[in-house]
């Protein structure tokens, strides 16, 4: 018995030295069955399923990796989950029907989009208090923040704008009109650009954050896939800014975009109705949530290949990876 476990240990360390990636925990929110699936990024296996509040969608890690923040839309709250014990610890006030949010790079506060009230709510995650409410356009959804934390961008789905908000004053400083139903905002790490996906417009606008002009609209085309099915939602950009991944919703594809030329280089076939994306911290993998097929696809970033799909709960929506 002891011998055997020693042997396993030796084998495990041997494998570990071959693939030096460390194991991260991947948290997936499942909109329909009110759970969060936890996946080990090394074994690419489900290790836990956590019962959470109603209609879990937006999900993000605290800066120290100890907590998972989760929009429990039907609870009108942000739930805070212990990333080690998987217990729901407490709820943060969030305003009604929270869907997506973004954490300030310092770890506090949290900026929450309240779709029903045309507001962005600023929440102090330590004192569990609402600090401010910023009126924005109709159906606020996408939330992005500049790496220096000075500018937050919210997209409003019916107003069709990216609202640039000064985080010091919580005031809108500019509005950029984009195409129909903007869903997601993602800053590049150098803070130069922000990518805004337009689900119904079918494209991604790249906005220069200094001039706040759209410098490029990335369009998509997949042979054999109807144009109206190409609906960009989640966007993630690699740390060096060289690659952007765009989830194309009912087209069941993730587009790989060159971050310098803004040209689409590849379309990866994933599961059905792909919504959100998250990199592992080492950028070895990017995970996509596939709502209709109830799974996540694991994409090898170096090869740009889908290496595995993993079953989740029902209607997986958001995904985040612990540092």
């Amino acid at each position: 018995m002891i011998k055997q476990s020693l042997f396993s240990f030796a084998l495990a360390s041997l494998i570990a030295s071959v693939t030096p990636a460390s194991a991260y925990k991947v948290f997936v929110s499942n909109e329909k069955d009110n759970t969060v699936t936890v996946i080990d990024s090394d074994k690419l296996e489900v290790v836990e399923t956590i019962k959470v509040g109603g209609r879990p969608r937006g999900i993000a890690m605290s800066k120290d990796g100890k907590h998972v923040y989760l929009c429990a839309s039907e609870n009108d709250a942000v739930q805070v989950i212990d990333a080690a014990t998987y217990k729901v610890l407490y709820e943060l006030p969030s305003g009604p029907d929270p869907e997506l949010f973004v954490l300030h790079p310092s770890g506090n506060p949290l900026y929450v989009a309240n779709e029903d009230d045309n507001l962005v709510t600023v929440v102090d995650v330590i004192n569990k208090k609402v600090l401010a409410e910023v009126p924005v356009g109709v159906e606020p959804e996408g939330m992005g923040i500049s790496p220096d934390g000075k500018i937050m961008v919210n997209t409003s789905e019916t107003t069709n704008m990216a609202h640039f908000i000064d985080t010091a004053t919580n005031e809108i400083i500019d509005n950029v009109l984009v195409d129909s139903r903007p869903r997601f905002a993602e800053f590049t790490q150098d803070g130069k650009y922000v990518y805004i996906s337009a689900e119904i417009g079918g494209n991604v606008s790249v906005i220069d954050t200094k001039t706040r002009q759209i410098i490029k609209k990335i369009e998509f085309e997949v042979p054999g896939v109807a144009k109206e099915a190409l609906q960009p939602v989640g966007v993630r950009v690699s740390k060096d800014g060289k690659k952007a991944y765009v989830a194309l919703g009912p087209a069941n594809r993730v587009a790989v975009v060159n971050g310098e030329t803004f040209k689409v280089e590849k379309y990866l076939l994933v599961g059905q109705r792909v919504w959100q994306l998250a990199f592992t911290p080492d950028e070895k993998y990017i995970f996509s949530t596939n709502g209709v097929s109830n799974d996540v696809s694991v994409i090898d970033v170096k090869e740009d290949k889908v290496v595995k799909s993993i079953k989740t709960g029902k209607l997986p929506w958001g995904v985040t990876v612990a540092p």
Partner: protein
Amino acid sequence: MFNGDYPRRGLAIALIASVTGFSGMATVEAQTPPAAMTRIGIGYLKQAVIKPLPLSRLDNPLEDDGLAGARLALEDNNTSGKFLKQEFVLKEVLVPADGDAAAAVKSLVAEGFMMIVLDAPAATVLQVSDAVKDTDAVLFNVGAPDTDLREEKCRANVLHTLPSRDMLADGLAQYFIWKKWTKWFLVYGALPDDVLNADAIRRAAKRFGAKIVTEKEYKEAGGARRTDSGHEQIQAQMPVFTQDASEHDVLVVADENEVFGPYVPYRNWSPRPVAGTSGLTPSSWHPAHEQWGATQYQNRFYKLAKRGVRAIDYHAWLAVRSIGEAATRVKSADAKALRQYLKGSDFSLAAFKGQKLTYRPWNGQLRHTIVVGDRHIPVSWSPQPGFLHQVTPLDTLGVDQPESKCRF
């Protein structure tokens, strides 16, 4: 039916008239926007139609049918408009059944309300269209499903935000085909709307390869809704009326005014599903629809109107939001510029249907997906998988460009 797309303007308007005490026309005064804002004036004309009340009180017309949708869209437009210094103003005008809608719209246009939402019967739409044809005014038809308004009688200054009868029939028919229900028993009412509805069903059968095995007309034109001990009679009547039909997969009812249609389900002779204007019904909208962001829309509407969204509200919302979307994109209040953009190829609207909605350039009809549902919940959305089209699958619903008789 769940307050679908067929017109449902009953006595309620006459009631509003008596409550507010107007004799010719009632208007809700528009507010003047603050200076430095660009003002976009939207007129909303609702004409009363005198009809008996529907059989189910759940379908009774409401005072704010349609208007509530326009009011919500106005709020949405103004929330967006404040970022562009645009202010949208809505002026509501109620006209009795025998009132002069054309004159009312003419004076709206003279006051600068160039974007006009019309909730009125087809004949009124045509009169109004003629009355303002020499201006840049744009009319949005939100109440008349008549196919000929988009065809032989189409007008260059009219956009239609509600689907035509043909689009609805095609949406329902595609679902039947998907279910392999290809043998239909058609039962239709005696009113002119029902005759048109039955025509649309026959056209859909031919188009998608189904067969109408038996047809039957329900000859009574309606009477008092509330009678004591009515149900025994109905329970005896309906099985007999639906007897003697050839073997069929589904019974299709065409009764837009609820004279008998709601009595058919569960009482028909053969144990077959009922669809059409009762039972499984096609519509542009369902009050229980929650997909594609519709939850937020329903919640917003509930806050304003304290009820669910009906199809007529959605059509009015689409009209006012179309105006807002055009004003946002052209950054102007100029009617000519708005009209050009609305009718151009760049226009599209996100409207909780999982894909953009656009106007057909050849006849001004807004493309729709069609929800097929029972009273309670949506069952499916058409176009169904496999119905393909070289331009967009949405053009498998209704009269397509090559067959269109519309010439502006």
